[in-house]
């Protein structure tokens, strides 16, 4: 009796421990999965968030007049004549028409930067396709420049508008305009500028004293001297800032490294450059001409939060873009350029179509080579080859090849396919061949595993009724192994689809502005593929390429998911139970 109870107690003690261990293991598992999901969501979320702006585009729709003498200089309507037309001039004029007050050369340059001249080629194409348009006035749609697009999406700067109800009278309607108010309406701007200047002076002084301290701790020498001279420069700058801060409440000049202030009055916009008379008078240039010089009781001071020097989109461009948007000439819509255009230097015109076609062609070649060769190799090795030293050696080598870094295959492709066989560089044909080499071991290994998983009883059954070995394999073993083979092959292809390194070696990293054709001839045209396009864009100088990079990643991920869904579908479709 006591024995039985003590055994029971011992078991119960251990049992509690065992359950604790189980609970611990389970909670670790759940924690690991939660962590993985969180990281995945974070990743997808950040890519998704970054890509949003690339999926929409703000399109500028301008009325352009296609005067015959400018579009068709020879007057015969021939393609050569059309190509000689000055389409960029037409676009420039169309934009100038919207802002007749802009006449200075520098300002015009800023105005014309609202679109990329590459659109002239698109206009030419449209005219060449429809010669009947010559002589007409049409609305021509083009993506607004990437900076304007980012601005319209609120990604360049925030701005705040402060309604004013003090009477203000402008001195004129265009050019240099000063706005006079009875009360110091601009005093707060002066205080803000003073604050800003003081803060910056303090920061400079702090830096100067840091330099001096460091110089003191050092032995006298050129390094210490340099620090001391840097400190002196900073102090001098701080002194200048302090001086302008001291007089800021009396008269302030808003330099371009301070927040920009725009006065919106009488339908025009004046950029404030100086404030004087204790905040009663603001003077500046009219970026948009005023309708009248009458005194107004209701006007607005608009603050652009990011100083002009810290952005690549000027105050004037902000005002013009807003004016175009207010005139209903800018519409936001789904960015089809992303899918119908190939790569471009201008982010607003850049698309993934070229890379997508390149990827399709490359994958086509890879599939055509890797899947049949791989599957038949696997069948031979698994079902027919004698088991001896030679086949063992082959097996070991195939397994090793699967672990070879992919860039090595790229080098191989460069040395063998391009240098030795003289195939063209940058071509999907060569890319596909290189990726096929890389994919083959994966296909062979997974196909062999699938063949091995077919129960031997099926082979015996077939052989038992007198099927030959080949009949046994092709009538019975292969159909049963097919789901596994397909899954392995598609996963191998999906890997190849995401591969970059070997393609860099064979020159598929080029800037390709024309998508290769989907016809067989496209196989030897220069092309690039999706992952390389992502790599190229991630390096792009323009900020809008950031969003394009994320968008391209999403397109590639969608392609991968489609591939894997196909694998799952095929698996379900062909799976048989026995």
């Amino acid at each position, binding site marked *: 009796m006591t024995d039985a109870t003590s055994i029971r107690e011992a078991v119960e003690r251990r049992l509690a421990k065992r359950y604790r261990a189980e609970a611990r293991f389970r909670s670790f598992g759940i924690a690991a999965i939660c962590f993985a999901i969180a990281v995945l969501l974070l990743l997808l979320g950040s890519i998704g968030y970054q890509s949003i702006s690339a999926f929409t585009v703000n399109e500028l729709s301008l009325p352009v007049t296609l005067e015959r003498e400018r579009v068709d200089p020879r007057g015969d309507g021939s393609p050569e004549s059309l190509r000689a037309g000055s389409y960029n001039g037409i676009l420039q004029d169309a934009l100038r028409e919207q802002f007749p007050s802009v006449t200075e050369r520098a300002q015009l340059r800023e105005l014309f930067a609202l679109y990329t001249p590459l659109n002239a080629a698109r206009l030419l194409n449209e005219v060449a396709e429809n010669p009947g348009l010559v002589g007409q006035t049409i609305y021509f749609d083009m993506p607004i420049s990437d900076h304007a697009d980012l601005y319209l999406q609120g990604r360049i700067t925030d701005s705040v508008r402060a309604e004013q109800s003090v009477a203000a009278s402008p001195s004129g309607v265009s050019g240099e305009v000063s706005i006079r108010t009875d009360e110091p309406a601009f005093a707060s701007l002066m205080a803000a500028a003073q604050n800003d200047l003081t803060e910056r002076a303090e920061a400079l002084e702090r830096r100067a004293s840091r330099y001096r301290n460091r110089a003191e701790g050092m032995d006298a020498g050129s390094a210490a001297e340099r620090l001391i001279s840097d400190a002196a420069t900073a102090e001098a700058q701080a002194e200048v800032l302090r001086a302008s801060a001291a007089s800021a409440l009396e008269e302030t000049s808003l330099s371009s490294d301070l927040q920009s202030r725009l006065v919106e009055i009488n339908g025009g916009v004046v950029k404030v450059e100086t404030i004087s008379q204790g905040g009663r008078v603001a003077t500046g240039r009219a970026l948009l001409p005023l309708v009248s010089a009458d005194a107004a009781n209701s006007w607005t001071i608009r603050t652009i939060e990011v100083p002009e020097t810290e952005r690549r989109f000027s105050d004037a461009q902000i005002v013009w873009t807003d004016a175009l948007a207010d005139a209903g000439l800018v519409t936001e819509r789904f960015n089809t350029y992303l899918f119908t255009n190939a790569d471009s230097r201008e982010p607003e015109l850049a698309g993934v179509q070229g890379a997508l076609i390149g990827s399709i062609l490359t994958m086509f070649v890879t599939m055509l080579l890797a899947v049949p060769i791989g599957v038949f190799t696997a069948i031979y090795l698994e079902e027919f080859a*004698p*088991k001896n030293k030679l086949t063992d050696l082959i097996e070991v080598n195939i397994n090793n090849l699967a672990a070879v870094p992919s860039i090595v295959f790229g080098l191989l492709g460069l040395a063998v396919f391009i240098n030795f066989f003289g195939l063209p560089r940058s071509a999907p044909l060569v890319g596909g061949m290189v990726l096929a080499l890389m994919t083959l071991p994966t296909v062979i290994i997974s196909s062999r595993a699938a063949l091995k998983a077919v*129960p031997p*009883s*099926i*082979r*015996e*059954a*077939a*052989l*038992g*009724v*007198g*099927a*030959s070995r080949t*009949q046994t394999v092709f*009538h*019975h073993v292969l159909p*049963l192994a097919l789901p596994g083979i397909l899954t392995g092959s598609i996963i191998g292809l999906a890997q190849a689809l995401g591969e970059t390194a070997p393609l860099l070696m064979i020159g598929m990293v080029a800037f390709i502005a024309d998508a290769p054709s989907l016809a067989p001839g496209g196989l030897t045209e220069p092309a690039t593929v999706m992952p390389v396009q992502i790599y190229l864009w991630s390096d792009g100088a323009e900020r809008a390429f950031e969003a394009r990079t994320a968008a391209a990643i999403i397109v590639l991920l969608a392609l991968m998911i489609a591939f894997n869904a196909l694998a799952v579908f095929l698996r379900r479709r062909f799976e*048989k*139970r*026995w």
Partner: protein
Amino acid sequence: MTEKIQTVYHANQPANPKVALDGVDVFYGPKQAVFGVTMGIPDRSVTAFIGPSGCGKSTVLRTINRMNDTIDIARVTGSVKIDGEEVNAKDVDPVILRARVGMVFQKPNPFPKSIYDNIAYGPRIHGLASSKSELDDIVETSLKKAGLWNEVSDRLDQPGTGLSGGQQQRLVIARAIAVSPEVILMDEPCSALDPIATAKIEELIDELRENYCIIIVTHSMAQAARVSQHTAFFHLGDLVEYGGTEEIFTNPHDQRTQDYITGRFG
């Protein structure tokens, strides 16, 4: 290596054996699994191979339709003749041989196809039927012979793998019959079945005896006694004793046979 033991042959050995084995040795790699088996197996009767696990009875069975060819390391020497024709001869195609010698395995192994296609597969690859109706006839006759027709005639397009274990095994027998073999080899055909299914198979074997030479490997002494006319006892790769089933079971000459039959080992 131990000296080859002398096989005890009972009287009334078949004068005109369907299958004749003479000095058959089988090697798996360097290891010898079967030692000089010599025996004659009569036509239109059931011959049972009995013996403890690993005694080589299945291996001997598989020499008759050269299934050992499919094992890379297996090597067979000696002579196996069917109707006086050497099966190991170079000019004998194992495919043709296996059409003449059907085989049923331990685990029912229907193809993952319809019942109809399971039966029709053999005739199709051997070109035994010239028309669809002829093929239908073969399927029907084979299923009838295997006693399965009444159970499956209305669902020939259903997968063969959906049948019960006993039905599957009879389907597999029907598949073997469909190519009109002369010899049917059965490797423990009932070991995966329940007693009722076993009884049905045994009944079937008894019927098939009328037309075929049947060789059955079994672990069940009772089954051997029930279905076979001849019994061969194997032990450690040797054929120890061979003769009429009744004689072997009632009057075993060798001590090991007696021990095995009475259940003292094995």
